[in-house]
């Protein structure tokens, strides 16, 4: 009986995968016509990688880091510096020229992405040594600070020949197709999921649950926190590299603290401690932001222009949304549960009852998750 449900669920998953691939192939068939949709989906997939890596740290190890933008910047700049075609470099570094050391080094894209991830992992290891020995509040503030320092260094005039200072880098090679983006993102996320479900993932969760008990199980707190921090930063760096390829041109302003807050919104909305929640959140937030774009345009109804609608209103709506989730739906969409077909069907079955209940007694909204 159990096996039948299981194979049935596998069948559903396979079906969903085929549908997704079909949809992507459909978009890919007319890249010019669907460029807007493609760009939203690609950005979502990249944010999903970063959000899952933030969740690995925050949701599964219980450490709260706010350095995502900084680690993404490192990945992005490494990928950019080493993949901009050599012949295009003169036009990119037209102000101060490029450092002769770097001028002729061009790496294949996968190598550059890996290098970007490794560089941010190495920096994370360094920061982690002093900070992870302390309470996690300090980690939040120190990583946030580092993220700003990294930006300051990138924009500093003395590194102009490497980072092109405040002019940013352009002509970064892009992705050949949407499949590359989704494939890479899926690879990163699958690796993180495998880690979370391994013996090491259990050790991370033990630390999240109770540090003292985890220690008495023979787990060296610092070692495992550092490990989780380094791995999370690795994937954040890779995500940053992917973002650079997606955007084709980057500068230090791309990686402001607000980027970290975007990722945080995704993780909180999806549910802290749920990988599928983070993925779902990445697609919802990224496309939601595009859909909300009309808030930024002046709105005229029957000749009367509604005064609220102007540039910046979208972000206000967005931050209010974050506050509403934090205050009233603290568990987010998925809580700490993962998506499952049984959970989805269960929800659909219960939906009529729930609606009826809500009508009769205007009860407080539930956690609104797919519970198994």
């Amino acid at each position, binding site marked *: 009986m159990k096996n039948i449900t299981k194979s049935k669920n596998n069948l559903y998953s396979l079906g969903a995968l085929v549908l997704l691939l079909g949809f992507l192939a459909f978009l890919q068939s007319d890249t010019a016509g669907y460029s807007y949709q493609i760009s939203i989906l690609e950005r979502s997939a990249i944010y999903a990688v970063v959000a899952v890596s933030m969740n690995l740290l*925050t949701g599964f190890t*219980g450490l*709260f880091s*706010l350095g995502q933008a900084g680690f993404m910047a490192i990945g992005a700049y490494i990928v950019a510096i080493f993949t901009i075609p050599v012949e295009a470099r003169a036009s990119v570094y037209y102000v101060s020229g490029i450092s002769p050391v770097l001028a002729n080094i061009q790496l294949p894209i996968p190598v550059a992405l890996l290098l970007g991830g490794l560089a941010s992992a190495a920096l994370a290891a360094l*920061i982690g040594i*002093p*900070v992870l*020995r*302390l309470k*996690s*509040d*300090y980690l*939040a*503030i*120190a990583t*946030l*600070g*580092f993220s*700003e*320092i990294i930006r*300051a*260094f990138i*924009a*500093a*005039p*003395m590194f102009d020949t490497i980072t092109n200072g405040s002019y940013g880098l352009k002509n970064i090679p892009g992705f050949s197709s949407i499949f590359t983006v989704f494939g890479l993102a899926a690879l990163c996320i699958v690796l993180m999921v495998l880690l979370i479900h391994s013996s090491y993932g259990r050790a991370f969760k033990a630390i999240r649950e109770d540090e*003292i008990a985890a220690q008495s199980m023979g787990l060296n707190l610092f070692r495992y926190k550092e490990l989780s921090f380094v791995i999370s930063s690795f994937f954040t760096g890779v995500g940053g590299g992917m973002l650079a390829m997606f955007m084709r041109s980057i500068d230090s302003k791309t990686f402001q*603290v*607000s980027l970290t*807050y975007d990722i*945080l919104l995704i993780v*909180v909305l999806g549910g*802290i401690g749920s990988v599928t929640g983070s993925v779902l959140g990445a697609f919802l937030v990224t496309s939601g932001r595009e859909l909300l774009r009309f808030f930024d345009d002046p709105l005229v109804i029957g000749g009367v222009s509604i005064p609220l609608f*102007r*540039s*910046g*209103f979208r*972000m*206000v709506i*967005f*931050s*209010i949304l*974050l*506050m509403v989730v*934090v*205050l009233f739906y*603290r568990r987010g969409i998925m809580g700490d549960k993962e998506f499952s077909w049984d959970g989805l069907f269960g929800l659909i079955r219960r939906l009529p009852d729930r609606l009826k209940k809500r009508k009769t007694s205007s009860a407080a909204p539930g956690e609104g998750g797919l519970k198994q």
Partner: protein
Amino acid sequence: MSFTTFLQQCLTGISLGGAYALIAIGYTLVYGILRLINFAHGDIFMMAGYFMIFAMASLPWFLAIPVTLLVTVLLGVSIERVAYRPLRSAPRMSVMISAIGVSYLLQNLATYLFTALPKGYPEIPFLKRIFQIGGLSASFVTFLTPVLTLVLVYLLILLINHTKIGMAMRAVSKDYETASLMGIKINKTISFTFAVGSLLAGIGSILYFTDRMTVFPFSGSLPGLKCFVAAVFGGIGSIPGAVIGGFILGLGETALVAMGQSTFSDAFTFILLIVMLLIRPTGLFGEKTTDKV
């Protein structure tokens, strides 16, 4: 560098440090009581800047200042009421995320309402008067800031050590639950703490922006972070610590700018943080706390 220039730089540093100290106290007070990094504190400071711009547009300075301070205090207290109080029993991470949310909201709201372009900060004539002492010349606000900071800190310490509400604040910061069992009104005490913190941030804002002349939606975020570092440096929860941290930060930063390394004056703060955490994690005046097993 001549001796006069050196003194001039010191004066600038001390003045900046005074403004930092006033903000850092807000962090230290709130952290002491709620164990929360109030990420929105820097943005309250930024909003106070805007309030002042609008108050000065229609009021003379001696009315504009109290109005600005009052509105800032209201903002601080209502943030606590709306965004932190409902999460009293929630995990600490949720409260921290809520604080980030408020900070994000205030920045976006400021961008929406006042645009992202820097707005000119009004000049208060008597604060901008230039004084000459020997070879030193500086505006009145430069001399006023450190003096006012020290006076305010003295008053605050008196308040905390010698009044009933001060005793309540000390009790709540030592043990939240026991304090409530002893009949201390937790919510009132916390609101009061936010009011004091916001008041100091408001005063700090006037002193800081009078020297800088412009306000923009993100002008609170970096000073906010720095002042939190100042509070950690001095030992989080300790008021004299926050003050000394603020002054050290102000002096260090000014020294780097004077040496022509202004790009790294921001980085200096965080390097200071890391060094302190390595050598003395509890900060200069912090107390060591041990979890009960």
